[in-house]
């Protein structure tokens, strides 16, 4: 069965590189107020396109991701609070 396959829900920390995704929800309870505010100001919101670009080190180190048209660096702990739904791959 094609496109109705269950699309796994992941968070920004586990999202594989270069897989286009959309921001779902953000677990604000895990974030300190200044961090939360900065996250919003950088454009993280439900429905915004997101993509992981670079990881600093295999395990540990921050992540660079594209949010909208901007590139942003985040620590993994913060990335883990952002759940995303992966866009389905374009049909062959």
């Amino acid at each position, binding site marked *: 069965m094609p496109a109705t396959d269950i699309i796994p829900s992941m968070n920004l920390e586990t999202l594989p590189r270069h897989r286009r995704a959309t921001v779902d929800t953000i677990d604000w309870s895990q974030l300190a107020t200044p961090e939360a505010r900065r996250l*919003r100001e950088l454009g993280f919101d439900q429905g915004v396109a997101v993509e992981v670009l670079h990881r600093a080190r295999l395990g540990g180190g921050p992540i660079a991701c594209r949010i909208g048209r901007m590139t942003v660096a985040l620590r993994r702990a913060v990335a883990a609070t952002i759940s995303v739904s992966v866009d389905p791959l374009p049909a062959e």
Partner: protein
Amino acid sequence: MEMPPLVAMVGNPNAGKSALFNALTGARQKVGNYPGVTVERHSGRLALDDGRPVELVDLPGAYSLDPASPDERVTRNVVTGAQAGERLPDALVVVVDASNLDNHLRFALQLIALGLPVVVALNMVDLAERDGLVLDPAVLEAELGVAVIPTVAVRRRGIEQLRAQLTALVGATSGAMRALRPSDGSIDDDIVTLQRRARAIAAAATISETPVRRWNHTLDAVALHPLVGPVLLVALLFIMFQAVFSWSEAPIGWIEDGFTAIDGAVKAAMPDGFLRSLLTDGVIAGVGAVVVFLPQILILFLFILVLEASGYMVRAAFLMDRLMSQVGLSGRAFIPLLSSFACAVPGIMATRTVEDEKDRLTTILIAPLMTCSARLPVYTIIIGAFIPARQVLPFVGLQGLVLLGLYLMGIVGAFVAALLLRRTVTKGESSGFMMEMPKYQMPRLRDIAIGLWSRAWIFLKRAGTTIALTTVILWALLSFPQAPAGRSQAEYSVAGRIATGLEVIVRPIGFNHDIALALIPAMAAREVAVAAIGTVYAIDHTDDAAGEQSLVERLRGRWSLPTALAFLMWFVFAPQCISTIAVTRRETNGWRWPAFMVGYLFATAYVMAGITYWAAVFAGL
């Protein structure tokens, strides 16, 4: 006399505000300070189309009116009329990055809602077009309700139209300011609502859009690669430090020759006596010992400014973040700490961009441990006098290794200090690291030159005032009262007696009276220690053999190797710099933290020098 109207430039960071500011004001700009805070105030003059002058102010970049750092607080205060010493602006130029409307429009909407006359500069449209993004400014105008002018600041496109629009805006409206919505937590809803509205407007104004071009991504694939990235960073740092040493040799020689010439001229023109001694041994020697560092500081800052302007610095901070987070710092602290290798004074000022208070404080407290250029003459002379010039490995000499070891000692010390401070005095949650990574850009020569000039000026002003004054005071302490024949001036003078007192404290770590005496003027600036040691010997000997060559011989004769090593270790840690203490007081708004910094650094210097001395003695050196 009436003051000209005030126009403020506001916008997100990385929107190209400063380039636009430079384009509008040309060379007629100056840098000052906002009263009570340590944020810089950049202002300039602009003549409107009808000849009226306005004062243009470039406000610090901010993401919203809810401030996260002292910089952002100033921006918020200025546009709401709450900033001490600044009037409410008569108009705002809101600068947005055409490639990032989603984000930049949110702040623009907040600013427009304040009710001041606004013109929006849609900046960097050329970069947007190159990236495949075509916008319709008319749609933006309709949605925002204010004039929108496309600009390319670096090519001066749109400047005339912007000026024309300002001519129409300034002084024309008498609009009452709409009340700023109170930030009582409902600001969060506002941000989300504004963000969605911003995104909707951006979408409406986009005529055509292709996916974001990949070349930035390719550069980052190299710069941020898990293996190549750190190697590239280390290579760049190595090149940087290497250049600092080799490129500065010639200019240092010129400056030294210049001061020698001045010294000679004064000696020839004036009769022997106190005034002449004050000028030559006091002011010229003291100030000269400091100004000679200008080349090294400028070269290091040249690299730092170029790397920052190109956008690479953020990538360097990204790579360093893992290491820094392990000692409780943020990758953002990398830039101030790197600057501190030139001089801790601008390094400490650069901590203004660090948002978390505890993080910023910790960075300030460890900045003096970065081996600043002022330590180099002390290291050079002691290493030259006491460490044999032996080759340890091909291309690696013992002297070079000791120098490298001293650098590393400072860095390791800083990390250990950060770790301990974060657990005790500046305890707090581990600060985050969240940064926008701007596109790579070609650094603009003119902006770099302006940045270098302002740093050179700050440094020379410091040399001309604080250090000159302190050197004169210390010269006086050393020269009076005059010792009767047969008694050593170095012991008889006021400074000498202070040194005798200090000697009691520092004798256990291997320091002698000469060292205790030299440390006093070295409080003005570290590099003065060398001049001071020279002066100590010169003042007691009428033969004018105070050149470095004989200074080295004198040192070898009077100091033991363990003493020399302990002296080196002392200089790694000791806060021998009044300027650093002064800037720490300014940046932390009080004496508490500078006092703490001085205390813990002297204590560490004492302990470490002591350990070095006794270890060297027991090792039979």
